[in-house]
C-alpha cells in the first residue's frame, strides 16, 4: 500500500526537510511565470507532488489532517471559478471575455501592466485547480476509491 506510513528513517527525515522547500518552489514557479519558464500548470503539479510525497511517507491520515477532502474540492472548483470570474469581470467592465485591458481602471495601473496582473490571477486559478485535481486523482487511484481515514482499514482487509 502506498498510503501507509513509511518506516524508513532516511526517507521520512529527508522528505520532512524537503517538502516545505518544494512548496515554496512551486509557489515561486507560479508567481514568476512571467519572467522564467513556469506558470500555473507546472507550479500546480509540483505542489501536488509535494502533497503526494507527504502521503507516501507520512501516511494518508496525517495528510488529510492538513488538507481534507472538503478543502480539496473547494480548491478544485475554486480555481476554475477564479479563471472564469476574471473573464466575467472583464465582461462586466465593458470588454470582451478575458480582455484584461479593461481591468486597468479597477487596478489603477496602465493597460500593459493590467494585462500582466490579469495573467497572474489566471495562473493562480490554474495552479489551484491543477493541484487539487492531481491530488484527488492520486488519492483515488492509490486507495481504490476510499480516501478517508475510517475506510482505510477496510480497504487493506479487502486487499489481503
Amino acid at each position: 500500500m502506498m498510503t501507509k506510513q513509511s518506516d524508513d528513517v532516511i526517507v521520512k527525515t529527508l522528505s520532512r526537510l524537503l517538502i516545505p522547500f518544494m512548496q515554496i518552489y512551486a509557489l515561486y514557479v507560479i508567481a514568476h511565470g512571467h519572467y522564467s519558464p513556469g506558470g500555473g500548470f507546472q507550479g500546480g503539479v509540483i505542489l501536488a507532488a509535494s502533497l503526494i510525497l507527504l502521503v507516501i511517507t507520512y501516511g494518508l491520515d496525517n495528510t488529510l489532517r492538513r488538507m481534507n477532502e472538503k478543502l480539496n474540492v473547494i480548491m478544485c472548483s475554486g480555481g476554475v471559478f477564479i479563471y472564469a470570474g476574471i473573464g466575467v469581470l472583464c465582461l462586466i467592465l465593458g470588454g470582451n471575455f478575458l480582455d484584461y485591458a479593461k481591468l486597468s481602471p479597477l487596478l489603477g495601473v496602465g493597460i500593459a501592466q493590467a494585462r500582466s496582473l490579469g495573467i497572474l490571477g489566471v495562473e493562480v486559478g490554474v495552479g489551484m485547480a491543477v493541484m487539487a485535481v492531481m491530488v484527488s486523482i492520486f488519492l483515488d487511484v492509490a486507495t481504490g476509491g476510499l480516501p478517508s481515514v475510517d475506510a482505510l482499514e477496510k480497504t487493506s482487509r479487502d486487499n489481503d
Partner: protein
Amino acid sequence: MKAIALIAVLMTGGLLIYSIEGLPDWGDPDSPASTHVSPEYIQDALEKTATPNIVTAVLADYRGYDTMGETAVIFTAGIGCVLILRKKRKGKGD
C-alpha cells in the same frame, strides 16, 4: 493479432513517411508555421502585456479562452475519476 498490428503499423508508418516529403526541414526559420501569426506574438508580447515570457503571454492572454477550456477539461477529468472509482461509504449511504 500481432500480424494485424504489424500491418497497421506499417501502413501508418508508410503514410507518415510519405508525408515527411512535404514537411519543411528541421529548424527551418521560414517554415509556414513560423511565418503566419507567431512573428506578431514575438513582436507584440512584451510591449502590450509587459510579460517577458512569450509563452505565458500567449497562453493566458492571447489564447486565454483556449486555456480556460483546458482547465475545464482537467477539472472534468478529476470529477470523472472520482465518479468512476469512489465507493459508497458504509453508514453514510442510504
